[in-house]
């Protein structure tokens, strides 16, 4: 069956820009998160998860990792790590949630919040360049392209799509549901947990689900 609208595969290649801002205490981290760019929050959360996709346990975002590794504050790190990016549809929402957690901790623990760490946190940000990879008009074409899809493209369509679509879904599910009318496939794909999968295993799982849909 030929779709009324093709799925456009895109890859995103990222440059990391050094912002020049750093943090040596939890208070400075809080201030940095408050004033850094959206591209910086994106880099240290969504991008961080994608960069470390092969760590499918115990890694969430750069802020949590620094609080654990450099500040030795496991409870605060756990709270920051519990931020579920798949439930977030805007950077503003992520920033507000991070600040809420940090504000609470710094208010209740002013001495720890002012303590200098051994290693600083360096705020960076993402500069994105998008490049089209080609179209798929049928589920079969989609499946064949998906099977060879590089990590950057998986990240773009499956993870960061939430911010672009401003929906709690991904580009694949969005196409399955809105263009092909395959609600069940869309739901199953959207249920794949990116925190416990690598980009490879998530891609393989989607291929499996599409194969099943096609009766393969």
């Amino acid at each position, binding site marked *: 069956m030929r779709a009324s609208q093709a799925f456009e595969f895109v890859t995103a290649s990222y440059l990391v820009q050094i912002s020049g801002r750093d943090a040596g205490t939890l208070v400075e981290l809080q201030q940095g998160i408050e004033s850094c760019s959206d591209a910086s929050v994106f880099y240290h959360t969504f991008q961080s998860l994608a960069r470390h996709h092969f760590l499918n346990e115990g*890694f969430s975002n750069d802020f949590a990792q620094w609080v*654990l590794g450099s500040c030795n504050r496991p409870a605060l790190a756990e709270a920051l790590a519990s931020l579920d990016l798949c439930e977030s549809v805007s950077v503003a929402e992520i920033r507000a949630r991070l600040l809420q957690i940090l504000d609470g901790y710094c208010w209740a623990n002013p001495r720890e919040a002012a303590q200098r760490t051994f290693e600083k946190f360096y705020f960076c940000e993402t500069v994105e*360049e998008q490049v089209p990879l080609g179209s798929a008009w049928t589920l079969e074409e989609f499946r064949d392209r998906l099977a*060879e899809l*590089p990590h950057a493209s998986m990240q773009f369509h499956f993870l960061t799509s939430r911010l672009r679509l401003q929906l709690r879904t991904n580009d694949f599910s969005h196409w399955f549901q809105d263009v092909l009318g395959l609600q069940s496939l869309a739901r199953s794909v959207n249920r794949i947990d990116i925190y416990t999968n690598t980009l490879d295993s998530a891609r393989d799982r989607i291929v499996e689900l599409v194969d099943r849909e096609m009766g393969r």
Partner: protein
Amino acid sequence: MTRAAVEPRVNRLDDYAGLLGAGEIAELRTLAGRLEGRTIQMINSTSVGGGVAEMLARIVPLIEELNLGIRWDVITGGDDFFAVTKAFHNALQGGCFDLPDESFQTFLAYSEQNRTRLRFDADFTIIHDPQPAALVDSRPAGGKPWIWRCHIDLSQPDLKVWKFLAPFIERYNAAIFSSPAFARQLPIPQFLFYPSIDPLSEKNRELEPQVIENVLAEFRIDSRRPILTQVSRFDRWKDPVGLVRAYQHVKRYFDCQLVLAGGGAADDPEGEAVLSEVMEAAGKDPDIHVLSLPPWSALEINALQRASTIIIQKSLREGFGLTVTEGLWKRKPVVASAVGGIPVQIIHKQTGLLCHSVEGAAYQIRFLLSNPAIAQKLGEQGHEHVREHFLITRNVRRYLTLFLHFAGRD
């Protein structure tokens, strides 16, 4: 003008597909396709020797294979010029600058000579390190992008040298650093490019078990007992004596061996002194193997790393720490100090273990020797970390993205 001698093309892009997947290589070709017809010029100060020349010798052919016009040029100068640039290099990394003020004129005079010798007509010009930095005088106003790639740590430079160089750097369109910690406040965008290793090079390629056995036999290392290895120059910043102390703590609990392999002792008086200190600390322990290797020992280093139970980098100060990258690539559990670029590579308890002291290093080594399953998992995750971020193909991708970024602003 001296054109750098590009090494024969040993490895082609498709050779990397087995390690990265065909999709990743196809993606590089797609990115490069958007830059069709564009030209690139890389300029540095030497065609052989040193990490930058080694990196360019490998990266230039790969970019060429992507059908982009790339030229690698090398500046020339007399001994007086290179004496000045060496002094700059050390001073920018925190050392003292004790040359007379005329040395700045020497630097400018040779830069002027190189400006007249070299041709600057590429779409993207990348200048590597401080030696050729003043060539930016040849960039026409509002011209094509010039980018300064800084491979050294500029976080605590000698201010006299930095104040001399900064006005040149500020005229570039952007600068690239190997770590955010190495950057400086500049009025131009600063990008982060991690250093990288070539997985197909002699130092990192897979080896037959027999080759590894032969190297161990050559150095009289016992393959049946745990081997702890640090590969680095005999330099105080690498803390080889501290590592011997850490090993001595571990030795109380485990019948293991320590291998300290590196160069820098033969032609460096400080290296010789450090080597003597290490030998003294080692005493008569036959399980401490101190190997002073010549620069052409890539295969031996590869074999020693692959034979190791644990790789250690107990540095007090470090650049990026490519020996850590090499260990991780070989799926080895790594214990390393949390300095320089090491924490970028070692995510504590995920891709290796960080330490901050002799006792800490000893404890982490004991932990890994007691928990081989955890050690194996760290090694596997460390390998993936390198595959994703610190291979030469990733740097090709970073350059392509940088060119796309500037091409989009034309």
